[in-house]
């Protein structure tokens, strides 16, 4: 086929309108969310003392941190689905959850009666945290990558890593309502390792899945 013929053919298809990447990403995340929620309900469940826990600001902080990871990561993924986009001007958004954690750790240091640092850091659920967050994140990561395929990311490893953070943030939001370790030190350690793991999987999958 000659290039002029191809051009005429493409022009003939001009009426076709693709959905915006944002709506495809939202749809695929909504389709995957029930899978993660079923894993959560069957394997973990909400902690029994949730009503009292809600009066503990450190319990609430966990949700602020996980959502402050998930929501900016969604925004950055959508930004990176444009071919000319780079992280410049956007990466700082990922510092929001870090800032919240630092503030939380600082706040906890001020508390007069606090358990020893190592007890807070190691907690009781470290292993559970490291396995449950990636497990619940995986269906969301697959959905996010499939949704982002609709875009045109030219930095697929970075876009994949951000998709990993997005799904880890959402999965960690579920997990936070199960876990009885509320210390910001625990969150800063184990949630971070879990999210980094999912981000690494996303970074490895990105160049394979997101090529266009």
């Amino acid at each position, binding site marked *: *086929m000659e290039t002029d013929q*191809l*051009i005429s053919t493409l022009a003939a298809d001009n*009426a076709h309108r693709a959905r915006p990447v944002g709506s495809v990403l939202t749809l695929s995340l909504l389709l995957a969310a029930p899978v993660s929620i079923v894993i959560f309900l069957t394997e973990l469940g909400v902690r029994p003392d949730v009503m009292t826990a809600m009066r503990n600001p450190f319990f609430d902080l966990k949700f602020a941190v996980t959502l402050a990871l998930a929501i900016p990561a969604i925004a950055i993924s959508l930004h990176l689905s444009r*071919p000319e986009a780079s992280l410049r001007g956007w990466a700082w958004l990922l510092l929001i959850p870090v800032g919240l954690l630092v503030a939380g750790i600082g706040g906890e240091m001020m508390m007069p009666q606090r358990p020893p640092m190592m007890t807070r850091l190691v907690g009781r659920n470290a292993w559970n945290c490291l396995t449950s967050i990636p497990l619940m994140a995986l269906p969301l990561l697959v959905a996010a990558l499939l949704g982002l395929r609709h875009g045109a990311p*030219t930095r697929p490893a970075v876009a994949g890593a951000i998709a990993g953070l997005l799904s880890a943030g959402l999965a960690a939001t579920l997990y936070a309502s199960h876990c009885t370790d509320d210390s910001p030190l625990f969150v800063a350690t184990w949630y971070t390792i879990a999210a980094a793991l999912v981000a690494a999987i996303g970074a490895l999958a990105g160049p394979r899945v997101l*090529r266009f």
Partner: protein
Amino acid sequence: MREREDEWTGLMRSAISGDDAAYHRLLRAVTPVLRAAARRGLTRAGQPADQSEDIVQDILLAVHLKRHTWDASAPFAPWLFAIARNKLIDALRRRGRRVFVNIDDFAETLPGEPAAETVPAGEVEAQLKSLPARQRDVLQSIAVDSASIQDTAKKFAMSEGAVRVALHRGLANLTARLRGQ
């Protein structure tokens, strides 16, 4: 050059609001620039420059299928060159070279550059044969026989809507096959 790029942006805006002729003009206008950049990329990778046409067609297909990722409030050229650069790197990598493509390869092109000899593209043509029959027939009719959507619909006793669907699916499938080869 600035004027040229502003013109592209204007044409693309018209194209998106439904002006097929503007879209056709835009694709014709960017093709020589893409061709020159592909030739430079091939030369730099130590490949024969006359193999550029497959890369040009590959870029045009990607531009078409990903144009919904262009933000109509942004200039068109950076978006176009990002797509083109990505496709060029991909194509050179498939040919087995590690390469670096400079973004200036695209921007530097002078509008008046003479047309160079190129080998006709073969990859799209080859993949066309492997498409499902209906998509292939519709694409052949519109691309090779230059039939309109209306004429193609009459010829195959299809509705115009079905022709449009087959056309778009055919183009998307072609691109997927080119990527997988």
